[in-house]
C-alpha cells in the first residue's frame, strides 16, 4: 500500500468550520425553553455554613429555581475517585472527594454553595447577590509546608492530619551507592505550576426528554464516555438513556477531564427536576477557583555522582499540594516521581512523597501533569553537579544517557498507569547532538558569549533533556464506515480539544482506503456515535485512538477487497484502491466506486450468505501493553537586563523524538503551544495565594498568559525512533513542549546573570523579574 497522507503536512479538515465561526462550542448550544444557571461560591477558604437565606433571591423576577445541598437529598454525596492509586506496597491514600454542593463545611474558595436557575445569566447573577450566607470562618491551611505539619488546621476533620497520600518507591540501595560517591549534591527545589486557562472556560448544557426518557448532556469534557457512565450511575439510568456530547472544545490541557465537577451533576439534575433544559457557562472569575489547578511541590533532593559525572543514585523527598480534595488520586506526584529519572541511567533511587491537603482548589493534571516538577529536580541537580565537577553541561547529560542498546529499559518502579516504568525505545545522544548543533552551542559558549559579555551584555544559554511517558492505556476504539455516498465516517470515543484529530485520524483512514482526507468525516466525543473509550489525556489520543483507527480502517479495507473481488469475480491481490474506488490493476475500465460497493455490501432484498455482516464497516479497539516514551531536549539563548530583570529570548530550539509522525504540521503546533505554556509557567504565570488561601490574581489581567511578544519563534529538529509497542510506531507529543521549560529557564538565566560565580542558584519556578532581582541580590 502506498502511503500518501501519513507523514504529510496535511491541512486540517476542521479548520473551515472553525475559521468561519460555524463550529459548535458549548455556549452555542441553543435549545427551546432554555434556562441559565449561576453558582454561588464560597468567598472563604475554610468555613462552617451556619445558615443560607435564599428568600430574596427566590422572590426575584425571572428566577426559576434555587437549590442548596438540602434540596439535593441523596444526590449530595462525594464524587468518585477518578484514578485509584497504583497497587504499591505501603501506600497511604486517603480519598476525599468534592460534593456537588457544600453541606456544611467549605474547604476552598470557590466551592459551590447554591445553584440559581433563571431566565438569563444576567438575572441568575442578580439572584446570587440576593443570597445571604452566614459563615463561621475557620482557621486556614494555606502554605504547603505548614499544612503538612501536625499542628496545622485540618482540611478533613476525620483525618488525624492533612496527609492525603504517602508513597515511597525505590530502586536498589541508594544509601550504599551514596557511600561510593565522589560528590553528593543536595538542594531544596520548589516548583509551582499554575492553571491551564484555556481561552474557553468550562460549560454544561443538559436537556431531559421525559417522553423519550433520555438525558442529553453537552459538556466541555475530555472524557465523554466516562462521564456518561458516571451520570448513568448517579441518576440510576441505563447508559443507553444518557448521551454525552463533547462539542468543539476551546482547549483542554488536562483539567477538563476531571470528574465530577459539581456542575456536571447539578446541571443535569436541575434539567430533570425543572423539566427544562439548563445551561451553565463558567465565567473567567469562576474558572480561577472552580476549575482544577496544578500547584506546588517542594523537593529535598540529592544526587550521588561519580567523579566522571555518572549518576550513582538519587534521593528525593517531596511534598505535593493536592488542594482540598484528591479525586485524581496520585497521578500528578507519581508522574513527578517517575519522570525525574529522565533519559538517564539512575542505578539507585529512593523517592518518597507526601501529598498534602490544603484549603485551596483541587489539583489534577494540567499539561505536563507533574512531569515538569521531576524534570526540574534532576536537571538542576545535573547542572550543579556539572559545575562542581568541572564538566560541561551537555557532557554530563550525555554521559548519563541510557545507551541505545539498553531498550526496552526497565526503571523498576511503577508508573501512573500501574505498569512498570519501562521505556520502549529511544536514542538520546544523536538528538542532543542535533540540538547543540542547531543552537550553535560550542560557538556560543566559546566565542559569542565571551564577546557579548565583554560588551557588558548579559546573555546565557541553557540545555535540558527530558522524557515523556505518553500513550498509556487502557484502550480506545474506532468505528470506520464507508457510506453509500462514498464518504467515509469515523467515530471514536476520545474528545478533541484542538489536537487535530479530525485530520490526523482521517489521514490514517484515507491511506488505508484510498480516499482523500477531506472525504473522511470524523466524529469524536459523542457517546451516541461511539460507545466505548477512556478520554484524551497523557498525550494518548494519537497513540491509542490512532492505532484503533488504523486497525479499523484496515479491517474495512479487507472487506472492501473481499466484496470487490466477488463483484469482479477476481482475486483480491489483483485489486487496487485509490481515488475513492477499487479497480482491477491494469484494467482501469473495471472500476467500482466505494459508494457503489457500500450499496452492494448492504443489499435491501434477497438472501445473503450465512455470517455476512452488512456494510463496509468495522470497529476495532487498541490497548498498548504500556506507555510509549517520547524524548526531547530544549535549548535557549536568553538576554537579561540585569537592572530591570526583563528578559529577551534570542534563540530557542526544540529537538524531539515522538516516533512516527502522522502530521508534522500538527506536531509542530503541539510543540509550539507546549513551549508557550512552559514559558508562561517558567516566568509569567503564578497563582498567588495569601495566608487565608485567597487567590490574589484571579483575572487574566493579573494571571499573565504569554502573548505573541513573550513567545519567541522556535526552531524544531527531530529524530524518529518508532515505538515498538504500537503498529504505527507513534509516541505522544502533547506535553513535550511544556515539560522542560522551567529547568531551561533556571539554567539559562543563571548563566546569563553569572549567578553561580556568586554562589547563587535558581532552584525555584516560577521566576519573575521581581523574584530574579531578589535572588540575584542574595535574598533567598
Amino acid at each position, binding site marked *: 500500500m502506498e502511503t500518501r497522507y501519513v507523514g504529510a503536512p496535511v491541512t486540517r479538515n476542521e479548520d473551515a468550520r472553525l475559521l468561519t465561526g460555524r463550529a459548535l462550542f458549548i455556549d452555542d448550544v441553543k435549545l427551546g425553553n432554555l434556562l441559565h444557571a449561576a453558582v454561588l461560591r464560597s468567598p472563604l477558604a475554610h468555613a462552617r455554613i451556619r445558615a443560607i437565606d435564599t428568600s430574596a433571591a427566590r422572590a426575584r423576577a425571572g428566577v426559576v429555581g434555587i437549590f442548596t445541598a438540602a434540596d439535593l437529598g441523596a444526590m449530595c454525596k462525594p464524587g468518585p475517585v477518578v484514578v485509584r492509586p497504583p497497587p504499591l506496597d505501603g501506600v497511604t491514600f486517603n480519598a476525599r472527594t468534592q460534593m456537588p454542593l457544600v453541606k456544611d463545611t467549605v474547604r476552598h474558595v470557590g466551592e459551590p454553595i447554591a445553584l440559581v436557575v433563571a431566565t438569563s*445569566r*444576567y438575572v441568575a*447573577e*442578580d439572584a446570587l*447577590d440576593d443570597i445571604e450566607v452566614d459563615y463561621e470562618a475557620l482557621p486556614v491551611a494555606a502554605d504547603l509546608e505548614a499544612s503538612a505539619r501536625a499542628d496545622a488546621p485540618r482540611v478533613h476533620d476525620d483525618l488525624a492530619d492533612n496527609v492525603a497520600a504517602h508513597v515511597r518507591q525505590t530502586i536498589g540501595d541508594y544509601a550504599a551507592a551514596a557511600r561510593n560517591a565522589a560528590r553528593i549534591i543536595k538542594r531544596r527545589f520548589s516548583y509551582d505550576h499554575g492553571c491551564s486557562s484555556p481561552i474557553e472556560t468550562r460549560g454544561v448544557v443538559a436537556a431531559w426528554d421525559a417522553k423519550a426518557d433520555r438525558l442529553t448532556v453537552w459538556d466541555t469534557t475530555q472524557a465523554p464516555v466516562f462521564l456518561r457512565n458516571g451520570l448513568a450511575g448517579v441518576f440510576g439510568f441505563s447508559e443507553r438513556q444518557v448521551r454525552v456530547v463533547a462539542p468543539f472544545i476551546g482547549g483542554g490541557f488536562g483539567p477538563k477531564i476531571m470528574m465530577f465537577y459539581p456542575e456536571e451533576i447539578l446541571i443535569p439534575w436541575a434539567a430533570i427536576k425543572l423539566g427544562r433544559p439548563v445551561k451553565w457557562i463558567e*465565567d*473567567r*472569575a469562576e474558572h480561577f477557583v472552580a476549575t482544577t489547578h496544578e500547584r506546588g511541590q517542594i523537593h529535598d533532593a540529592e544526587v550521588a555522582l561519580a567523579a566522571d559525572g555518572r549518576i550513582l543514585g538519587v534521593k528525593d523527598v517531596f511534598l505535593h499540594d493536592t488542594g482540598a480534595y484528591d479525586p485524581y488520586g496520585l497521578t500528578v506526584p507519581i508522574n513527578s516521581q517517575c519522570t525525574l529519572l529522565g533519559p538517564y541511567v539512575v542505578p539507585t533511587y529512593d523517592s518518597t512523597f507526601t501529598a498534602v491537603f490544603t484549603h485551596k482548589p483541587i489539583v489534577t493534571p494540567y499539561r505536563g501533569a507533574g512531569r515538569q516538577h521531576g524534570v526540574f529536580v534532576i536537571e538542576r541537580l545535573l547542572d550543579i553537579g556539572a559545575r562542581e565537577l568541572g564538566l560541561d553541561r551537555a557532557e554530563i547529560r550525555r554521559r548519563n544517557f541510557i545507551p541505545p542498546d539498553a531498550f526496552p529499559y526497565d526503571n523498576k518502579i511503577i508508573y501512573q498507569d500501574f505498569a512498570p516504568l519501562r521505556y520502549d525505545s529511544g536514542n538520546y545522544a544523536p538528538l542532543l547532538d542535533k540540538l547543540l548543533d542547531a543552537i550553535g552551542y560550542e560557538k556560543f559558549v566559546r566565542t559569542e558569549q565571551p564577546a557579548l559579555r565583554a560588551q557588558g551584555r548579559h546573555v546565557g544559554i541553557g540545555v535540558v533533556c527530558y522524557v515523556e511517558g505518553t500513550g498509556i492505556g487502557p484502550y480506545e476504539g474506532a468505528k470506520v464506515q464507508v457510506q453509500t455516498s462514498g464518504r467515509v465516517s469515523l467515530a471514536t470515543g476520545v474528545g478533541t480539544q484542538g489536537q487535530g484529530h479530525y485530520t490526523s485520524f482521517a489521514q490514517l483512514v484515507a491511506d488505508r482506503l484510498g480516499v482523500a482526507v477531506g472525504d473522511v468525516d470524523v466524529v469524536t466525543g459523542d457517546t451516541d456515535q461511539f460507545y466505548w473509550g477512556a478520554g484524551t489525556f497523557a498525550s494518548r489520543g494519537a497513540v491509542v485512538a490512532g492505532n484503533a483507527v488504523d486497525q479499523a480502517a484496515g479491517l474495512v479495507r479487507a472487506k472492501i477487497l473481499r466484496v470487490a473481488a466477488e463483484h469482479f469475480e477476481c482475486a483480491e491481490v489483483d485489486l487496487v484502491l485509490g481515488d475513492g474506488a477499487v479497480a482491477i490493476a491494469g484494467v482501469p475500465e473495471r472500476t467500482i466506486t466505494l459508494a457503489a460497493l457500500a450499496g452492494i455490501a448492504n443489499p435491501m432484498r434477497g438472501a445473503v450468505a450465512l455470517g455476512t455482516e452488512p456494510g463496509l464497516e468495522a470497529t476495532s479497539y487498541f490497548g498498548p501493553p504500556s506507555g510509549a516514551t517520547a524524548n526531547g531536549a530544549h535549548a535557549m539563548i536568553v538576554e537579561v537586563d540585569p*537592572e*530591570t530583570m*526583563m528578559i529577551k529570548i534570542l534563540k530557542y530550539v526544540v529537538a524531539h523524538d515522538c516516533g512516527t509522525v502522522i502530521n508534522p504540521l500538527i506536531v509542530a503546533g503541539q510543540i509550539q503551544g507546549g513551549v508557550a505554556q512552559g514559558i508562561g509557567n517558567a516566568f*509569567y504565570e*503564578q497563582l*498567588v495565594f495569601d495566608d487565608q488561601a485567597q487567590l*490574589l*490574581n484571579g*483575572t487574566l*489581567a*493579573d494571571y*499573565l498568559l*504569554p*502573548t505573541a*511578544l*513573550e513567545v519567541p519563534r522556535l526552531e524544531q529538529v527531530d529524530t524518529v525512533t518508532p515505538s515498538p509497542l504500537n503498529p504505527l510506531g507513534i509516541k505522544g507529543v502533547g506535553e513535550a513542549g511544556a515539560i522542560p521549560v522551567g529547568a531551561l529557564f533556571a539554567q539559562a538565566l543563571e548563566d546569563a546573570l553569572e549567578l553561580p560565580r556568586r554562589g547563587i542558584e535558581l532552584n525555584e519556578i516560577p521566576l*519573575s*523579574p*521581581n523574584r530574579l*532581582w*531578589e535572588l540575584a541580590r542574595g535574598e533567598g
Partner: protein
Amino acid sequence: MKPAPFDYWTPESLEHALALKAEHGDAARWLAGGQSLLPAMNLRLARPGILIDLNPLSGLDGLTVGDAGVARIGALVRYRALERDAGIARHQTLLAEAVPHVAHPQIRNRGTLCGNLAHADPASELPAVMLALGARLQARSIRGERWIDAQDFFVDLFTTALAPDELLAAVELPAPPPRSGGAFLEVARRRGDYAMMAVAAVIELAPDGSCTAARLAYGNAGPSARRAPAAEQALVGRRIDDAALREAAALAERAVDPPGSVHASPAFQRHLAGVLTRRAVATAVARVS
C-alpha cells in the same frame, strides 16, 4: 460576569448631559471608552445606577495642536487618535511615546485620555505624563467651567478633584519649552500591562548644557501619580553627568511610595524607579533640541 442593571442615558447635548449629571451626582457615571468602567461593572466591582453615555455627543472629540505645540484634547479623543495625530507626534512626543504602552490596540480604539485621567488609576501611565508635561484639565458642569492643574487633579486612589456634577471636558498640554527633551519609560510584565513602574521625564537645558528645569513624574508609585521634587532639584543648576544621574535616581527611589502587587514588591518598584530615572533623564537630555 454580567453587569448589574442600570439606567442608560444618551443625552441630546452637552448641556443635557451636564444637567443629568447635576441631577444624579455620584449615582450617575459618565461612559466614555468604557474600557475601565465596563470591566469593573462586569465583575460587579462597580454598580452605577445610571450611565450617561458621552459617545453619541458631538463636539467632544476635538484634537488640536497649535503651531507652537499647545495641544487641546477633548473628552472623547481616543488613544487611537492620539497615536495617529501628526501634531501630537511632532510636538507632544512624551505623550506619543507613552500612549502605545497603554493596553492593546483594540482597547486603544475605544479608550479615551480623559476617561483614563478621570478614572485616576494609580497604576496608569498617563497621569504621570500629565504631571511631567504640566497639563491643565478643564472641568465643566452646569455651574460653568474651571481649569485644574494636573498637580492638583489627582487626589488619591481613583479620586480626582472633579466634583460629582463635573465632566472632564478637555486636557490642555502646554507647548514644550525650548531646549527641552522628554522621555517616557516603563517596566511592565508584558507589553500593554499596567507598569510595575513608569517614569515620565522632561528636562530643560541652558545653552551651556546645564539643567534649568526638570520634571520627573511616576506612575504606580503611590496612591496617585507623583513627582520627585528632591530628585528634580538635584538635577537643576548642573550638567547632567553620571554622578547627577545617580544622585537623582537615589532620590527618586525615596520619593516614590509604591504599593506593591502580586507582580512587584515595593522594594523592587523603588529599585525600578531609580533605574528608570537614570535612563529616562539620560534619554531626555540626549533628546534636547
